[in-house]
């Protein structure tokens, strides 16, 4: 049963957005000079940094002769959450997130192009306000483009929930922390919007099968909208003509 308080009688969500509104996304490519590719992405109050190293020689234990090995690490800064987090990484949630990131990004990278090599993707969450997985996938996508690694398509991620207003059920796009904590369902989708395929689908809490389709469609639409934003950012970055790496730092 969708939580009744996710949507007010005026049709506004807990943070004042309309059901079909994404949070403001601001991003920048080429934030650091050391990694091969880097990006910073803000989705509302969630702030994420992504760094990509590679492709470089794979460690013997991880090497594969057929395709490139994608290695992801998801780390949250200790000051990122409301309550201070004791360990930035290494706990079960971070490891699960790293695996999910790997799942989504491996689907997007043209892995057959770099056998015996490894691509490292490191995500650092500076501020967590819901949708950290989605922001991480989006930031990683930009960082991979900044590193010049060939992708099959943009990979974007978006979450969706279900709200109830009088008798109608309305899907809510881009779930924030306050909505996640309100015990509503949260469906996270990582997809390649140009091809329309889904790389990862994850859901928490309960959702009736009758409503599954509308929530999934909403999330997929959210992915397409985010792709437009990311594409615009990439084009603007290229139009600026230079990255930090081109400027000789003393």
């Amino acid at each position, binding site marked *: 049963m969708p939580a009744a308080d996710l949507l007010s009688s005026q049709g506004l969500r807990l943070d004042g957005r309309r059901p079909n509104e994404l949070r403001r996304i601001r991003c920048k490519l080429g934030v650091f000079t050391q990694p091969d590719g880097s990006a910073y992405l803000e989705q509302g109050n969630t702030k994420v940094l992504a760094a990509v190293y590679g492709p470089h020689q794979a460690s013997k234990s991880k090497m594969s002769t057929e395709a490139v090995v994608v290695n992801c690490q998801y780390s949250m800064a200790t000051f990122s959450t409301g309550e201070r987090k004791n360990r930035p990484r290494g706990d079960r949630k971070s490891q699960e997130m790293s695996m999910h990131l790997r799942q989504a990004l491996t689907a997007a990278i043209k892995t057959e192009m770099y056998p015996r090599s490894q691509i490292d993707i490191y995500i650092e969450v500076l501020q967590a306000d819901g949708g950290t997985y989605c922001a991480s996938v989006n930031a990683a996508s930009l960082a991979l483009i900044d590193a010049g690694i060939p992708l099959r398509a943009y990979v974007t991620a978006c979450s969706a929930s279900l709200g109830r207003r009088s008798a109608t059920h309305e899907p809510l796009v881009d779930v924030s922390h306050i909505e996640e904590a309100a015990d509503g369902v949260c469906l996270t989708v990582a997809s390649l919007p140009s091809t329309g395929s889904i790389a990862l689908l994850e859901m928490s809490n309960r959702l009736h099968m009758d409503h599954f389709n509308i929530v999934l469609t909403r999330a997929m639409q959210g992915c397409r909208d985010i792709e437009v934003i990311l594409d615009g950012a990439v084009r603007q970055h290229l139009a600026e003509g230079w990255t930090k790496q081109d400027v000789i730092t*003393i």
Partner: protein
Amino acid sequence: MAGLLLSSTEKVFIVHGVQEDFRSDGRSNIDYRPMELETDVVSHASGSARLRLANTDILVGIKTEIDTPKPDKPDMGKIEFFVDCSANATPEFEGRGGENLASSISNTMQRAYHSSQAFDLKQLCIVEGKQCWKLYVDILILECGGNLFDAVSLATKAALFNTRIPLVKALLMDGGNVDLQLSDDPYDFKFLDVGSAPLLVTLCKIGEKCVVDPSAEEESCSVISLIVGITGNSKSYCADKGASNLSDVDIKCSTISMNGPGSLAPKTLKNAIHQGIIAAKVLDDSLGQALLRERRENINSMKSSYGFLK
């Protein structure tokens, strides 16, 4: 730090340049590289600062918590440092790779802030013996471009300057238990007095001379480096006009440590410490001016925040 390879000729070039007080990028031995500093980058934290010193990028977040004071120090609060070397800086820091470096930096910072003349913990006391503030200083190293200790201490001082401590609105003493009510008003807070907080200065011995703010290439040419923690001057951090009447506080050294496989003659050590004190004075002064200017702009709502977007 990632994949830095210098040929022996390049090393000789750097060493010879330093002897002449002329470094590869044109600086003198006591010049710092240009820095960018911005406070209040992370809104979830009580205070934060981001410092960019050429290639080095440090992000510091401060979180406050109510805690009981130590029984032998009932009127003093607590401060704890935690350093995290992010894998963004180099793949070697993945997982637990950066733990050695992180623990050495956090131990040095803990020692530097230990003295009450460096950072007065009495300002963190709420109810003597029962409740005090505990500050968690979380330092995130995003990129390593040489000279980590200096950058970390500068960013920490800026973040502490930016920290807002909520004011206590009501206090309920219930038979030994204290129940606090903090003010909900986001504009109801107090700032900390961090004027005397120490700044770490790294002096790298290259050949016979010592240089301040070594770049990564210069660090690889030196066998030993000295880290001195110098307390700041509260005068530079006071916005009042009456600040010029404050007497010049004696500069004190709160910690000294050495890093590297080499050794240092006592005379070189003394000269290096004096050099560090001079550099720290100038640095502290400029930091104070920049932070005061930012706070003024913030109050007048003239400050535009960039974070990582610029």
